[in-house]
């Protein structure tokens, strides 16, 4: 009895392995010949592809979600800031620079930033937003608060569309003045390479001051750079 039971599992193992081998040999044969197996493999491939696509879609959904949350985060403070004075910083030089050569870029743009800083230093109470954007690249090189970079780049698209529409890319400076709701004026001074965006609180700064004092001051300071 003992021997019988002891030998039996061995036999079973052998049988199993034989079965496996047989199955292997059949499947090897079928790999190339059986159409069902070919179909099976294509289905497997398709499933894999679908699975990969699902992963990509999920990732895209996540990105979209975070983008909308960023946008609402940006929109809300911007809307609130219209009636509030933007927080003052000592230098007000929050430049967006992604490269490692931050200092070089900052030095390169700093004269243009100085033009704006010098022109608005006495009238900051009436200014809700100020920024400088490079026309060709639509890159914001200066803004007063971090929430304004998005705002300025959206406006940048419009400026490029506008310049294309009027077909004027000349070096002559020109301005745009938009009377906005909520007692605001948007003043955009366009130069050949940069444009300066200034959002004005009409209750604290008159449009006469903008056009008769600020505008000539900006142009004078900018032209002085060219002479240097």
């Amino acid at each position, binding site marked *: 009895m003992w021997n019988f039971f002891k030998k039996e599992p061995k036999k079973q193992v052998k049988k199993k392995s034989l079965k496996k081998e047989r199955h292997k040999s059949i499947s090897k044969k079928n790999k190339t010949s059986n159409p069902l197996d070919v179909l099976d493999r294509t289905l497997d491939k398709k499933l894999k592809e679908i699975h990969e696509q699902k992963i990509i879609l999920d990732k895209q959904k996540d990105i979209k979600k975070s983008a909308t949350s960023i946008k609402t985060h*940006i929109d809300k403070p*911007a809307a609130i800031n219209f009636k509030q004075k933007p927080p003052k910083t000592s230098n007000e030089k929050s430049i967006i620079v992604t490269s490692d050569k931050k200092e070089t870029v900052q030095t390169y743009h700093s004269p243009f930033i100085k033009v704006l800083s010098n022109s608005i230093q006495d009238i900051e109470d009436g200014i809700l937003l100020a920024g400088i954007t490079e026309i060709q690249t639509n890159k914001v090189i200066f803004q007063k608060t971090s929430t304004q970079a998005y*705002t300025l780049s959206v406006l940048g*698209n419009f400026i490029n569309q*506008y310049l294309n*529409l009027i077909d004027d890319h*000349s070096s002559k400076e020109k301005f745009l003045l*938009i009377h906005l*709701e909520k007692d*605001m004026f948007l003043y955009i001074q366009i130069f050949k390479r940069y444009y300066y965006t200034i959002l004005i609180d009409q209750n604290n700064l008159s449009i006469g001051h903008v056009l008769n004092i600020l505008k000539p001051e900006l142009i004078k300071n900018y032209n002085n750079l060219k002479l240097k």
Partner: protein
Amino acid sequence: MNVKKLKEAVNVLNENLDGALLATDIWGTGTGTAIAGYNQNPQATALFDKVTDYMRKALKGAGFPDIKDYYLLEMENNAMAVVLQFKEEGFQWGMLVDSNKVNLGMLLNIAVPAARKAFLEAYND
């Protein structure tokens, strides 16, 4: 809309600007076609209709308030374009002005409000 009064409104603007008005057009927003004007320029009308559309979209996208009464563009050869907005009525009134012949105070504080009033009177008649 009283067309006769609308033409009178254009004449009022011309008088107020005292020779500085180079051209003007009143057009339906979105259509870009004029219903009255002086030295009319259909291409300019269509173009400024598009500029307004781009501008409003950009302002909205940037989270800014919408255009209120007008916008002003400085152009080459001492020309200045002012585009009045009649959002509720669905019209725009564009004018090209010689900035050497009229000062901004006269333009924005006298000519523009008078033109706005005259248009609304014609529209509501």
